[in-house]
């Protein structure tokens, strides 16, 4: 019996001929199940949400979504919490905004698989770099980024590098991923992508 992971299955399928695949023949103990589509027709996925943290208590984030509707997110030991770098539930603060992916519990709570706090993803033109400060412009105007001890540069699919010298350069257009600071609006940059 052949054991295939999801990527192998998809690769084999797209490069092979049309036809029918058997779950058992491919080594899957469980039937095939699409993971999406269980929401209302035309609606958003029930397994993804974004909101603003109102309060934090014992592994639960009390939040509101963009329509000010209440939203409860459970964070457990299996959840990944990202806030510039991977971190813990203790770093979740009221006032943080977030995107979360997970699964819905029967009571409507979204049990987080991954939650991204204060994440932003911008395409920018770098105006100036000095020490840890990077001034930039994007479609919203000017902004300030901060190069952090954890900032890395990413060139295509090469491994991330701590050498920022080729990307953190005035005049370059780059993509940055980081966290916006609610008090200052500055971006703490996690990744600079060519």
């Amino acid at each position, binding site marked *: 019996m052949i054991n295939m992971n999801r990527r192998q299955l*998809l*690769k084999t399928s797209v490069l092979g001929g049309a036809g029918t695949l*058997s779950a058992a023949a491919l080594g899957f103990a469980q039937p*095939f199940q699409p993971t999406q*589509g269980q929401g209302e027709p*035309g609606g958003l996925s029930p397994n993804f949400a974004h909101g603003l943290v109102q309060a934090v208590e014992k592994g639960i984030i009390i939040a509101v979504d963009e329509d000010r509707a209440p939203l409860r997110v459970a964070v457990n030991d299996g959840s990944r919490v990202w806030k510039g770098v991977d971190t813990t539930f203790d770093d979740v603060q009221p006032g943080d905004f977030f995107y979360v992916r997970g699964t819905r519990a029967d009571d409507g709570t979204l049990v987080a698989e991954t939650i991204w706090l204060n994440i932003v993803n911008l395409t920018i033109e770098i105006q100036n770099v000095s020490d840890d400060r990077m001034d930039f412009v994007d479609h919203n105007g000017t902004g300030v980024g901060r190069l952090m001890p954890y900032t890395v540069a990413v060139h295509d*699919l090469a491994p991330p590098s701590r050498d920022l010298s080729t990307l953190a350069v005035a005049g370059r257009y780059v993509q940055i991923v980081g966290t916006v600071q609610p008090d200052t609006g500055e971006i703490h940059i996690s990744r600079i992508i060519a």
Partner: protein
Amino acid sequence: MLRRVMGGVKRSPAYRRICGGLTSRCPADAWLEDDLCFVHFHMGQGPDTEHGWAVFAVRADDGQLVAAKKLIPDKTGQEVVVSELLT
């Protein structure tokens, strides 16, 4: 490179044919293997859309689409029907 690959997918007639039924225009996954980039989408948006997956294989160096299939599980989930999207 990701931009080149996604451009190859999203400009293709195969993608345009199914994009209305995708749960998101953002891929669920993309990975590089043997100089081919594979891009995986979930299907199932809308009442008349089949629930399943769409997979595209794109040459990494020039963004040329080389294969595209949709995979739709049958009602039992025991089998999945693979259909050509390039025709």
